[in-house]
């Protein structure tokens, strides 16, 4: 007989004891992170013959390309290869859903920065210097750059979609009060710390291995194969970890992989394409700008009777994921509130700017911001505390139908808001702040409590599936692969916990290995907060399959009842007996029990009928609320967030430390979106916030000392993995409380009689102008 291993797993120490659900164990890579040993794509060994890529970029927002002279590019030192669109052997279009994203532009360019040609050279600097040598003749065409312009010219990438409930027009017209409003919400640059990158290595027989920093390795595989005209089985895409993704690496990573692969195929050399930060900020899609308008009718209590909203998203030059993004904005234009009668129209505006893409929240935040803006406006109109108007309109049993026909079944928000109102001392602070504002002129304080209710599931139904592959080795250690990718959100840690827990083993027994398309095929992007919901269930399914075989074997071999076979506390319980796990696995192996299985999961219950705009697009909702307090300087508009209290629902937490990390991180990222991060273009269509020197994400100083995050402890009523809830995106929207608090402070300048307009982000400049509005109103004696 071949020898089996006599390697013994390290004896259980406290932290190597059987994995617990709900334990705050560190991120599975934490030790690698802090020692600098965690490998990102740019840290892979650099072979001698590695080539580096850069692209030549359009300098016009919209133009015909008349001629390109690349002779000086070819002649530039270090250049090995140059490609234009005609050199692409397979498909040119790398669009994810619809069409219209050429890998390299042909005879027309549609945004400043669009790649026209690509260079492979012996160093990154050589490639970057070479692309600047091209001579391109353009015939400049008129460009649409702003949403307003697109609306005026009917410039859309896709048809509109509308949600309708009841008769909103009649309800508004007959309501005791009607108001209307508008808010412009700017987009956001992802600013993942690790820029976009991919490396392609040619293998034998025309095959390729592609390392990518991508949230969607399956799409990388598919697009590389299509571009190179290869069968999918010739391409393996692999992702171990990303240095941040936030949606920015869902579709935007693939073109880099395709160009690296194209050069690898042409030259037979390994090729790395890393975008310098400037190119990344110019050439890759961002969060959409939205222009939101509403008209609302309500009664004296502020109760909504009818709402008519138009949400217009700036999609850029192509569709990319914009259909789903604008849909999700529409699905969240109710946020936590029963609208009674509603019309929600979503427009997909085409502009000659980079194609906007997924960003944490995927459109949702723009819908939520619109309705929260409306809530404040109603409150000021009626002279009420905005919190009371919000509470008045929360979904309740009986007032539980969404504009898209899904019934809200779990009602956590009334309890969450009540608890937070108490714990944050909201009412007392409100009174104290109002008094402060009455006696101070150059500084004003603001307070706001806003909720979030976020729908969980991909709105594209087929994406709600996942696979996993589990191997159990004869020393008792395991490898788990799944379709999800790790971008810092702790997915690998949660999967590791789920698998280790399923076998009663310590975490150290389970290695979560890099996500590869040859391990688990046909996967969905890691997006829509669904990573753990989908892949965790698939991994659990694989565990259950192996456990079923092991249990059947034990029943026969040891003559015990199936219920007496248990994987607990590092060992296998067999009735009254207990056996070391590795020993049991070896025995199973000798008895020819399969020790490897695939797992699969598809989300139940969900459906959406686009024609009737009704259905149940979401399995469940994640909920939370935040109270933020700010102080502003009325003379400059500068401000500071002074306190934040959050209560957020993650179901039964799989790992509270990781979930709290997502909430804190999401909140601060949302705060950046709504305060200091201002995405700006000039009037020729050039992004002028094109560097971290002029695009400012929050620093540690911006985070208040008093930043209290508490988990709302309640199991998910839906049968998710161990009754947990998704947590990736929802907390971002909690930061709307900061924006609303800033507006509250500005409103105080006019004794809360008006809601001055503040677009997002509320930069000091925006706050300053809002204060001026309020001052002007107050100066006129407060009469409207």
């Amino acid at each position: 007989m071949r020898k089996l291993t006599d390697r013994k797993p390290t004896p259980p120490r406290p932290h190597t004891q059987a994995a617990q659900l709900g334990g705050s164990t560190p991120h599975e890579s934490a030790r690698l992170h802090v020692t600098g040993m965690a490998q990102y794509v740019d840290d892979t060994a650099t072979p001698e013959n590695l080539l580096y890529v850069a692209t030549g970029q359009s300098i016009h927002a919209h133009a015909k390309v008349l001629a390109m002279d690349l002779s000086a590019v070819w002649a530039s030192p270090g250049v090995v290869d140059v490609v234009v669109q005609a050199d692409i052997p397979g498909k040119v279009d790398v669009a994810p859903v619809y069409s219209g994203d050429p890998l390299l532009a042909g005879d027309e360019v549609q945004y400043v920065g669009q790649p026209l040609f690509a260079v492979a050279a012996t160093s990154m600097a050589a490639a970057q210097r070479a692309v600047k040598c091209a001579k391109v003749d353009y015939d400049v065409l008129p460009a649409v750059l702003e949403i307003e312009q697109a609306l005026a010219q009917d410039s859309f990438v896709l048809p509109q979609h509308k949600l309708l409930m009841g008769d909103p027009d009649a309800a508004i017209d007959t309501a005791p009060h009607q108001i209307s409003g508008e808010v412009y919400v700017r987009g956001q640059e992802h600013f993942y710390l690790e820029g976009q990158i991919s490396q392609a290595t040619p293998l034998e027989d025309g095959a390729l291995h592609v390392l990518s920093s991508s949230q969607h390795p399956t799409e990388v595989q598919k697009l590389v194969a299509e571009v190179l005209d290869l069968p999918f089985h010739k391409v393996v895409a692999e992702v171990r970890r990303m240095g941040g993704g936030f949606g920015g690496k869902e579709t935007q990573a693939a073109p880099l992989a395709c160009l690296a692969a194209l050069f690898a195929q042409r030259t037979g050399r390994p090729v790395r394409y890393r975008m310098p930060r400037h190119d990344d900020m110019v050439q890759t899609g961002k969060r959409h700008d939205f222009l939101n308008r509403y008209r609302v009718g309500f009664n004296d209590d502020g109760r909504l009777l009818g709402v008519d909203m138009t949400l217009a998203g700036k999609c850029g030059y192509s569709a990319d994921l914009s259909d789903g993004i604008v849909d999700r904005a529409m699905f969240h234009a109710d946020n936590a509130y029963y609208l009674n009668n509603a019309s929600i129209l979503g427009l997909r505006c085409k502009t000659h700017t980079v194609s906007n893409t997924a960003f944490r929240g995927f459109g949702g935040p723009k819908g939520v911001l619109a309705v929260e803006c409306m809530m404040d406006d109603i409150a000021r109109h009626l002279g009420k505390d905005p919190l009371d108007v919000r509470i008045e309109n929360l979904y309740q049993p009986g007032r539980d139908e969404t504009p898209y026909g899904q019934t809200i079944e779990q009602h956590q928000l009334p309890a969450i808001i009540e608890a937070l109102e108490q714990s944050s001392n909201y009412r007392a602070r409100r009174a104290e702040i109002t008094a402060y504002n009455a006696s101070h002129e150059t500084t004003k304080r603001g307070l706001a409590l806003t909720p979030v209710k976020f729908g969980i599931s991909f709105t594209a139904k087929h994406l709600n599936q996942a696979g996993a592959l589990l191997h159990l080795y004869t020393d008792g250690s395991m490898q788990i692969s799944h379709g999800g990718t790790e971008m810092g959100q702790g997915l690998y840690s949660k999967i590791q916990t789920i698998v280790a827990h399923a076998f009663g083993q310590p975490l150290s027994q389970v290695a979560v290995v890099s996500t590869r398309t040859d391990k688990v095929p046909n996967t969905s992007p890691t997006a829509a907060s669904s990573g753990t919901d989908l892949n965790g269930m698939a991994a659990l399914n694989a565990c259950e399959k192996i456990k079923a075989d092991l249990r059947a074997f034990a029943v026969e071999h040891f003559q015990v009842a199936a219920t007496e076979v248990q994987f607990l506390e590092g060992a296998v319980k067999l009735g009254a007996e207990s056996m070391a796990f590795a020993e049991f696995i070896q025995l199973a192996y000798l008895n020819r029990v399969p020790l490897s299985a695939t797992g699969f999961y598809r989300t139940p219950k969900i459906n959406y009928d686009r024609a009737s705009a009704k259905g149940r697009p979401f399995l469940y909702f994640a909920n939370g609320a935040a109270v933020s307090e700010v102080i502003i300087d009325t003379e400059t508009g500068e401000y500071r967030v002074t306190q934040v209290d959050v209560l957020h629902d993650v179901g039964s937490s799989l790992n509270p430390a990781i979930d709290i990390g997502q909430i804190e991180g999401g909140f601060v990222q949302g705060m950046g979106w709504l305060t200091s991060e201002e995405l700006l273009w000039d009037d020729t269509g050039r992004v002028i916030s094109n560097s971290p020197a002029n695009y400012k994400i929050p620093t540690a100083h911006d985070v208040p000392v008093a930043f209290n995050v508490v988990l709302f402890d309640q199991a998910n009523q839906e049968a998710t993995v161990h009754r947990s809830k998704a947590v990736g995106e929802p907390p971002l929207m909690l930061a709307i409380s900061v924006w609303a608090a800033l507006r509250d402070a500005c409103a105080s300048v006019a004794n809360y009689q008006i809601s001055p307009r503040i677009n997002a982000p509320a930069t000091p400049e925006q706050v300053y102008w809002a204060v001026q509005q309020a001052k002007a109103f107050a100066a006129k004696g407060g009469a409207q």
Partner: protein
Amino acid sequence: MRFWLNGKQTDVDGVAADITLLQHLRESRSSLGTKEGCASGDCGACTLLVSDDDGSYRSVNSCLMPLASVQGRQVLTVEGLAQAGELHPIQQAMIDTHASQCGFCTPGFAMSLAGANQHAVEGDGRAHILDAISGNLCRCTGYKPIVEAGLQVLPKPNPLPPAPACETRTAQPLPGYWQPTSETELRGLLEQYPDARLIAGGTDLMLEGTQQYRELRQLIDLSHIKSLTRIDSAGDTLCIGAAATYSAQEKALSALAPAYVSFLLRLGSRQIRNRGTLGGNICNASPIADTPPWLLVQEAELIIGKAGGGFRYERLEDFYVDYKKTTLAAGEYLADVRLSRARLKCPAKLYKVSKRFEDDISAVCGAFLINPNGQLRIAFGGMAAVPKRARATEAFINKQDWRNPEKWSAIIDQAAQYLAQDFTPMTDVRASSEYRAAMAHSLLRKACRALVVGDDVEVGIYA
């Protein structure tokens, strides 16, 4: 050239003068723990520690630091933090507080925090930690656990490995990179290499390479010339050497110029201030540089050295000719900046308005001072093509009874029209022209309120 990398002597030749320390570590040393997030000094992913003359370590952005400049220094990277398999306490604390998510920013934070933890710290620990990581961005965590990790280790200083002794710092420098140790040597080099560029901290200059891919073939490093790094406050004049870093100024001037020193906390980040110099700020001639408005109201004088020998004096106000243009001729260099100590004691206010409190470039920066004759001096950055005194506004105000608590406010109301004469600011990514104009007026009002009635408001530092 020779430097020490995590305790190991490292000899380098055949490398261009403008290769950054980060490029060298990642491309030639397989030292991959140090990350590149921006190559422009803004994100801190490339932060590492470099030993200084006093044997302690300073955090720097290795993406903007020429490799050649670490001649004779010890460079500590994240790989060198753990000793004999034992994590540095900050590394363990970062694990314990869940301070890493994607992990890409983590090495940079670990280095900044290890630097902040090398000596005992007095005073506000939290302020010390925030200062140390002011140049580190994290997009994942929201910073709270990182700050917590820093606070956990702070009570007990953790000394870093000793830097190499001075006498071992002999090696052939890289070709095209000179580190003169005297002004005489500097003048010789300026004569011999008229095309060479001067580099002090490199926090402006190196961007030409990392952002525009321009080659900087010949660099003369000013940071080893004692007469240029010195800060001398003996006598009636304060002389700040052009190559004195901000960190050195903070240390030397906290008693002499407290308003300036606390204002410096908003200039760049700790990493930038460890490298950036006053001379670089002045000679880079950016209209949004932060020190010139203050220097203008101090009526600072520049001492300019010449390749052929000798010096000339110039008032800072006369130094700026136009956008990014100065009177500095070929072969000239800024030697030091002179300030009157009497004027330093005058009541003064400094303000900076930007989108973000820390490490941001000013939309408008304003400096205000009542000079020994009781005259108000006003200067702004971000309001014109060069940093500029508000002459018409000054003239108007100084004719009024502006220090009268009953009258100052109405006078400031009227001053708006004079500001409009002095400045026609522009619109750009940082602010609109209207906002800039409004801010100039608001800052003037703030300053006068503070100077006249002592009521000072700055929400940024409100916590």
